[in-house]
């Protein structure tokens, strides 16, 4: 499948941005300056970016606890995200949401979600809006293997099929729901679950951007064509713990090292495009340098930005009261 050079470069930049954003957060969190919980997406970048490269601002996504990657892939401003995570009034949610609730409706990002399984029902609603308003949009629910067992998710697969919604259900399967293995917690297979609700199913290797881009392209085209919902099962690897501070005692020694060595989506992407002669290493190095500067600036800015004021405490509970 041919992917435009411009798309490839944009995707590389998005993946690199997610990686550096997250690795920086990993370091910054350890300093104790970041309040609350942070759940890192590192290692899974090709999934968010491969899917979102097939979407426009008119399409909608809903995300998970591990939402930074989806936000960046969907176009949420990095500086605003960083400020949000630092709890600053300049944050994309004005310091009211934090890492677990970053949303930007203007670019179709319906929110990370603090509730496992919170997103799929919302995506049925967004898909219903696209269908009813006939705006050509599709709605994509990202959820993990853990959330695939929530009743809300299973109900949503059913509802989306019953209503023939333009919805794509993307299972990001990193093999762990918090600290419990999917092999223990998920009965049957995701494929059988899709079949159980009369829904087509595609799976792909989440460390391979090209595989995700192609599979997601097919899934999204299916939904966009009015053929109803579809499930995309992405196999991927989580490099850090469920949350920052998680020592990952439930993972075998060497598991993460192997993921980094053999399944690093950024490394694989670079090898693929340079070997194919699409890009010189120097072009990608320039992207890396620009992203490094961008993240550095975002962190410095976030630390310097104003904290919310006491009046903000009561603001925006309602539109009108």
């Amino acid at each position, binding site marked *: 499948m041919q992917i435009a050079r411009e798309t490839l470069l944009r995707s590389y930049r998005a993946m690199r941005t997610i990686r550096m954003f997250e690795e920086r957060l990993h370091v910054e969190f350890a300093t104790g300056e970041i309040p609350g919980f942070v759940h890192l997406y590192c290692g899974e970048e090709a999934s968010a970016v491969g899917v979102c490269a097939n979407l426009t601002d008119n399409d909608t996504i809903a995300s998970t606890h591990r939402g930074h990657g989806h936000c960046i892939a969907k176009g949420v401003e990095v500086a605003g995200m960083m400020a949000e995570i630092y709890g600053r009034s300049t944050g994309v949610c004005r310091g009211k949401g934090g890492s677990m609730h970053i949303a930007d409706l203007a670019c179709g990002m319906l929110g990370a979600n603090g*509730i496992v399984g919170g997103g799929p*029902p919302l995506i049925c609603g967004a898909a219903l809006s696209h269908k009813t308003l006939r705006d050509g949009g599709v709605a994509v629910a990202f959820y993990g293997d853990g959330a695939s067992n929530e009743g809300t998710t299973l109900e949503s697969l059913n509802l989306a099929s019953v209503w023939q919604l333009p919805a794509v259900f993307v299972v990001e399967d990193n093999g762990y729901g918090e600290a419990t293995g999917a092999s223990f917690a998920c009965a049957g297979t995701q494929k059988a679950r899709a079949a159980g609700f009369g829904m087509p199913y595609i799976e792909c290797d989440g460390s391979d951007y090209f595989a995700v881009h192609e599979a997601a392209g097919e899934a999204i085209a299916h939904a966009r064509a009015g053929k109803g919902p579809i499930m995309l099962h992405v196999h991927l690897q989580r490099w850090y713990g469920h949350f920052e501070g998680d020592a990952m005692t439930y993972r075998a020694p060497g598991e993460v090292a192997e993921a980094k060595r053999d399944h690093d989506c950024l490394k694989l992407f670079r090898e693929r495009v340079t070997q194919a002669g699409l890009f010189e290493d120097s072009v990608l190095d320039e992207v890396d340098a620009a992203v490094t500067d961008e993240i550095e600036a975002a962190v410095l800015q976030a630390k310097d930005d104003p904290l919310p004021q006491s009046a903000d405490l009561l603001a925006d509970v309602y539109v009108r009261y």
Partner: protein
Amino acid sequence: MSKKSFRQAINEALRQEMRRDPTVILMGEDVAGGRGGSANTQDAWGGVLGVTKGLYEEFGETRVLDTPITEASYIGAAAGAAVTGLRPVAELMFVDFVGCCLDQIMNQAAKFRYMFGGKARTPLVIRAMYGAGFNAAAQHSQALYPLFTHIPGLKVVIPSSPYEAKGLLISAIRDDDPVIFLENKVMYDVEEEVPDESYAIPFGEANLTREGDDVTIVAFGRMVGMANEAADRLAKKGIGCTVIDPRTTSPLDSETILECVADTGRLVIVDESSPRCNMATDIAALVAEEAFDTLRAPIRRVVPPHTPVPFATVLETLYLPSVEKIEAAVTATMNYRVTEKV
């Protein structure tokens, strides 16, 4: 103007708002009813008690959406549709079923605006039946409005008559916040004069249905009718009651309540919901804090006992507040005398 039932008033509000605004859609279990049934009838029920009957016929399947019996997915879908451009009115049927989908109301719809830094609007209405008096027992009879009132971000409406229901539902549909609209199932056949044209009753403005000098009665939903009847009986005995129907518990018109209590010096609160942490305790706290020095007698609450709603008629009658219980509470507060302690 003609006489309309509570059920007809709600139906008319929905119909008029759906005609006015093409983004208003209905969804819920059997809101049309009959889809997929052997009779091949597409408008068989209009909801389990017939409130939405005829709307499928007029607006069709893109505006009136039957759902599977899956509250979490379709209430969540209603929330998702609301933040992305539609104005859904979702019927939860019996409010007791909120246990199946509370996350979508409490953690999603109610919090979008605040969590997203003021950038979301969630013009969602959830209609549900509440209340005892139908022998529907513990899982179909609760009055859970305090539960919703407790959650910031939700507006909570409890209409007390057909006229109120129509005007308040129109406001609910036009509101840009999530609104819980609670209909007392015993009231669907109650009739009164209701204007044919569209009208909106604003939220947060209490209605004084009776005015008197001696006692203030605050009552919600179906209890307003009982409070009025008690006030009429008490008037014959020379006791003047002001009856306040707050209409909405969130926002709550505290000002009117405090003003009336300042005038009468006595307060009785009638609340059909379970007695711990309910509207009666909330208003009692408000008055104790803000208007203690205007009180001439202790605040009295006419509320059910702290028990699930029973099935048998004799027990359900004992459970519910009644005109007699309200009358007794008012009489007791009138008879209260401070006795000096030695």
